[in-house]
């Protein structure tokens, strides 16, 4: 049984950078802006954060530098898409490629150097609780932050008036403008805030979970985060759940490497990505018209509960996601 608790704790830890990045992307996309540069931003921020922390021997400065890089890339995306009205997808994609290559180029001197790392910090008292202590309270500050970030994002979006404005920005910016809000300015704010979180997620790799720096250090997890945000229906709790599921698949894959030595390691590395997409696609299939037709043929006793499940699983994109806003 103890092994299970340890595994769960490991899943929560491995998922921390994904959760942080996914919350950042959720905030931007809820405000109507797709930050497709996410994977590249994470790499560049991971490299910068590591380099700064290494040279200053100060972790806080490392994370701050990473957040700054994330915010800066987001701001560049904002200038092109929000101010100049260019396609968010195209600009974001180019930025993703550019940042990836920049991280390899600028990060060359730091490859495989030993550097500072976020210290393990069990919470006194709570860490000794049975089960819960083991799962939740024997981690480091970055992981604790990822735990807190999920309810915080959900509360921001659903519990505050600021959240109402953010969601409305992604649903119908014209209505927000009619209420006297500067749409572009607020979209910039959410895009940059989200970008900073993505940057911190990058540093969470290089300074915590995969300490150090190497070529393509985050192994494409930025792209999976983009998919998780979509399939998670832009809802923080569901998105976080998606991140934990992916982390669980990764851990299972690592385990099977030792138990199934016959399988090439490349397959095992890629398997979580494939499985994740399959799971997410299946979940979303529930809300397809085909399933609705199939449900309609069932006896009426079964229909109601099934429809409730389908309704719960449904993920609708913010109506104005990715669309530029022109002042009328």
């Amino acid at each position: 049984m103890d092994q299970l608790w340890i595994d769960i704790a490991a899943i929560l830890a491995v998922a921390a950078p994904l959760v942080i990045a996914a919350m950042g992307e959720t905030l931007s996309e809820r405000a109507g802006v797709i930050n497709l540069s996410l994977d590249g931003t994470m790499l560049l921020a991971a490299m910068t954060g590591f380099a700064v922390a290494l040279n200053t021997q100060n972790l806080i400065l490392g994370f701050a530098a990473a957040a700054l890089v994330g915010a800066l890339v987001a701001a560049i995306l904002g200038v092109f898409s929000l101010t100049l009205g260019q396609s968010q997808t195209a600009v974001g994609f180019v930025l993703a490629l550019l940042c990836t290559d920049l991280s390899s180029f600028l990060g060359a001197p730091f490859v495989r150097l030993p550097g500072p790392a976020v210290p393990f910090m069990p919470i006194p008292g709570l860490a000794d609780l049975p089960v819960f202590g083991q799962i939740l309270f024997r981690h480091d500050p970055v992981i604790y932050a990822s735990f807190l970030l999920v309810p915080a994002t959900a509360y921001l979006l659903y519990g505050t008036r600021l959240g109402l404005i953010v969601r409305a920005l992604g649903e119908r910016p014209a209505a927000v403008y009619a209420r006297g809000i500067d749409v572009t300015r607020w979209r910039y704010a959410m895009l940059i805030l989200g970008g900073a979180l993505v940057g911190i997620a990058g540093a969470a790799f290089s300074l915590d979970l995969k300490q150090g720096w190497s070529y393509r250090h985050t192994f494409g997890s930025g792209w999976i985060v983009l998919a998780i945000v979509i399939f998670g229906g832009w809802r923080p709790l569901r998105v976080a759940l998606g991140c934990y599921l992916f982390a669980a698949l990764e851990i299972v894959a690592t385990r099977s490497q030792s138990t199934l030595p016959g399988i090439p390691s490349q397959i095992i590395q890629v398997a979580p990505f494939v499985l994740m997409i399959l799971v997410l696609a299946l979940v979303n299939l529930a809300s397809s018209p085909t399933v609705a037709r199939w449900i309609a043929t069932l006896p009426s006793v079964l229909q109601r509960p099934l429809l409730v499940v389908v309704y719960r699983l449904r993920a609708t994109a913010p109506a104005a996601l990715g669309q530029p806003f022109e002042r009328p």
Partner: protein
Amino acid sequence: MRIAVEQLTKRFGTVWANNRLTIEFAAGQIHGVLGENGAGKSTLMKVLSGYLRPDEGRILFDGKPCQLRGPGDALAAGVGMVHQEPLDIPAFTVLENLLCAAPPGVFRSWRAAQRALEELAERLGFAVDPAARLDQLTIGQRQQVEIMRLLLCGAQVLILDEPTTGITAAQTRALFTALRQIAAEGRTVLFVSHKLEEVAELCHTVTVLRNGEVVPPGQLVMPQPQEYLLTLMFGDAGTTPPVYRPLPSIDSPPVWELRQVTVRSGTLHLLDLNHRFAAGRIIGLAGLDGSGQQVLLRLLAGQLTPDRGQILVNGRDLSGAGAIAFREAGIEYLPADRLRDGLIGALSLAEHFALLQRTGVIVDRRTAEELARQAIAEYQIKATPLTPIAALSGGNQQRAMLALVPPTARGILAEQPTRGLDVASARAIWSRLQARRDAGCCIVFASPDLDEIMEYSDEVIVCFAGRIGPSIPRALLSAGRLAELIGGVGFEALVEAV
């Protein structure tokens, strides 16, 4: 609040949308603003609500000049605009929508907002569930929510742009009651419309705009004779009644024949339809919204497959053949939502004609543009062959859609063919449809407007609660009798008599 404009001018390129307007709207009254499409009503309202900045002239609130940098400024100054499609957030609940970006200090908490909303709804006679999602509500209900939001956010002047388009008669009555209450409380209501009857019923004063100017200068106190207002709006063109011609008798097989057809769509279930739709007739479908007219139109267009029975088109059995086969048999369907189901907004008229080309790989631009030019001349569409359809006004879009119907069409199905059009455009559309009828086409149309049904139909079919009545020659029907039948009075007897 008293609201006035002085020497207000707004130009778009070479078009003077508003030409030195000077008007004052007094507080505590409902002011009608009349004018045909393109007369400058919308521009004036957008200037007053902060969406557009005037090129020249001033806006005065209670005598004080005011600079509006955006709709937020206008609302802060006390002017709220209810757009034709309410500018709310469909994914939100009524309460979330109310609180979203509300001016600071207006609502102290969610509960306070809910109480304020329920109180106001009670006072205005609206029924509203604060927890309902807006995309589950009808346009009429969303409009009510928007009116209440603006009032709660401090609007002293309420501008309504064509508020009765797309809402039910009951909602219109509720709206009018509420507007009277709002005016009685000392607020100013501007009611923009092209429906004379509604302005006559509701408004204390009326301002008529034509070609960007107020005619005659200044407000008119209601009531005014309807013919006089029509002359003001349209010049002389608006008052000529359409010419009524006796029906030619045509001995060709019916365009549609329904034999024992049963069809289902949503909750509506049309049973045992036996109808013949003869060539050379205009057949009006009357009934309350959702009584089955649309289902019948879609059945005749081949978009719905009957569960049982036969549909014969020009004598050929096309039961279950699908919409493409119906089109090939000469059936054309003109949907109510022109830009969603009918036309492609980003494409030009020439490109629409090009889409109809069925041969060759390369687009024959020259022929398409030639066809478009002919259509523009023939249907008097205000556009060039290369203007995107979305840039056209509603009337011109409707004409364009009609122009795309090939001359070989045998049957035209039109769902609310004059929806949102002013009187002159509507008459133009009808004269085209009548020309098609005279050429031997059968035209079946649905309209919520009883006057339109009475004026243009040769035969009328009443739909009531998912049941389709027999077709009645127009000559045997009075407006009063039609209104009764739509409400179900005597409908049963009519069905049994056949």
